[in-house]
């Protein structure tokens, strides 16, 4: 693969995972809650999307995926607020329960391809690929450019970028509405939200729903792009999301919510570029998870290290 193709493929993957990074950003940074539902809701988005797409509704499939994520978030939110179960455990419980649901959605198998059986003119059964947003968009690009070999990755990058741009705009606007601001405040000082006569439980639940809807949206996009859903795709997804958010913060620092949203998307792109480079130097694909974990650990330690170094320098200057 030449460098340009590598870049396109990395950016395209980065865009597909960008809503997931946004979801992690909403839960961890905005709402200040460690939500582990994410691993499960990613696959839930994938699975529901696969089922609906196979039935012939690729657009509805994306929406169904989003709705499924929101539902998963609703359950985690209710566990946290109404039953008072610790945030981390609530997420793990929902995630574990989702495994069964995802398994059932995929028809009791660990993966499901976006295709259906059709009888052709000669009377023989053949497998036909289901329509997807990516397939439709690529044929549109082929028509527009007249280039029959229009790069599938480039086409995917363009359409996903458009979708992510719209998502980013809507999300950024949302956080300045009354409801959105209440969610931000709930993550910042929940007691103050209650004393402002706002139902903080409701804000918290909405925030977790939003977060998981975004994560599931990523799962749905990936499902349509790679044309299959996989039961095990979600494991470690949270760490990937965290890595993206943290890498974004390296570029932009920790500032307002709009910058945070943009930086999560950039972080997701950067993360995929790093991965592609690692593959390029022949890192085995199973090493991805370890790499992600190491990135998160390093990124979390860096600020501390920086502070310690600058303090030591300041101490030295004091002496001289």
């Amino acid at each position, binding site marked *: 693969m030449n460098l340009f193709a590598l870049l396109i493929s990395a950016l395209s993957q980065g865009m597909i995972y960008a809503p997931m990074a946004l979801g992690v950003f909403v839960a961890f940074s905005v709402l200040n809650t460690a939500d582990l539902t994410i691993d499960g809701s990613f696959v839930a988005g994938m699975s529901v999307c696969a089922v609906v797409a196979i039935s012939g509704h690729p657009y509805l499939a994306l929406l169904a995926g989003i709705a499924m994520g929101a539902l998963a978030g609703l359950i985690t939110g209710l566990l946290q607020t109404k039953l008072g179960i610790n945030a981390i455990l609530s997420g793990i419980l929902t995630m574990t329960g989702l495994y069964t649901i995802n398994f059932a959605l995929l028809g009791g198998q660990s993966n499901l391809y976006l295709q259906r059986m059709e009888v052709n003119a000669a009377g023989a059964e053949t497998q036909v690929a289901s329509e997807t947003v990516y397939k439709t968009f690529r044929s549109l690009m082929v028509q527009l450019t007249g280039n029959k070999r229009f790069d599938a990755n480039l086409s995917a990058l363009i359409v996903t970028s458009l979708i992510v741009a719209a998502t980013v705009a809507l999300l950024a606007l949302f956080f300045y509405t009354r409801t959105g601001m*209440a969610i931000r405040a709930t993550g910042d000082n929940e007691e103050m939200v209650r004393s402002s006569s706002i139902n903080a439980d409701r804000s918290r639940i909405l925030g977790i729903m939003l977060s998981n809807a975004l994560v599931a949206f990523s799962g749905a996009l990936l499902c349509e792009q790679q044309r299959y859903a996989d039961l095990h795709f979600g494991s470690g997804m949270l760490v990937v999301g965290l890595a993206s958010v943290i890498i974004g913060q390296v570029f932009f620092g920790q500032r307002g919510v709009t910058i945070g949203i943009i930086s999560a998307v950039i972080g997701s792109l950067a993360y995929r570029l790093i991965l592609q480079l690692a593959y390029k130097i022949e890192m085995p694909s199973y090493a991805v998870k370890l790499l992600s974990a190491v990135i998160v650990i390093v990124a979390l330690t860096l600020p501390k290290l920086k502070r310690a170094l600058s303090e030591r320098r300041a101490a030295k200057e004091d002496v001289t």
Partner: protein
Amino acid sequence: MTELTLKNLRKVFERGTPNVKVALDGVSLDVERGDFITVLGSNGAGKSTLFNAILGKFRLDQGRIVLDGEDITRQRDYRRALNIGCLYQDPMRGTAPHMTIEENLALAYTRKASRSFFAVNRRDSAKFRDLLRELDLGLEDRLKTRMGLLSGGQRQAASLLMATIAEPKLLLLDEHTAALDPATAEKVLDLTKRIVAQRRLTCLMITHNMHQALEMGNRTIVMDAGKIVLDVSGEERARLTVQGLLDRFRADAGRDLDNDRMLLQA
């Protein structure tokens, strides 16, 4: 006219354990509209517990709370907050540090705000700027500044504004100047007097400063072991000195009103 009625409030914490504590032991109080009551008592007397009961932070074992004719005993805390503003000792408790002054005020103003798509809108912000100008802390030009960047005193002044901006029926002040340096505390206290007088708020204020307790407001209650042991107002209160208060307490409660902080400030 009675604004707030507390009828025989009772709360026992950690019942059935060796740490069992009767926090409220049959507290009854009628608060008239426009009353400014100062609340004294040694540590653990039940002052903050009383406030938390009014705020709905826990469920009472017994008793009723009526605010402006409405029984709120079983109302959820965030619903009561519609009519009750509260300020604590810690300036950090009342504000969201990562949000701007404007956003904090807009949030506190939620229930009275102008209808708009975005939470922050021009009409409300103009009002916020006017209110901030009255504080005289230069905050009116810093609407876009993050709350976390303000000093403790500035944050407490902003919290005071937030607690009163939606015109609550009742304002509860839980030693809201105790964590500030003397000069700032003085300033926040002046602001408090001004705002309470301006809006004719009904107010309960916990303090450890006995001079302050007798000077401010129109009525003083003293709590001990979950009970109100002294309740003075009018002429009787006007004539009362700190020493007189201590004597009265000793006579009624059968022991000294002992509290290091209180003695130092007396």
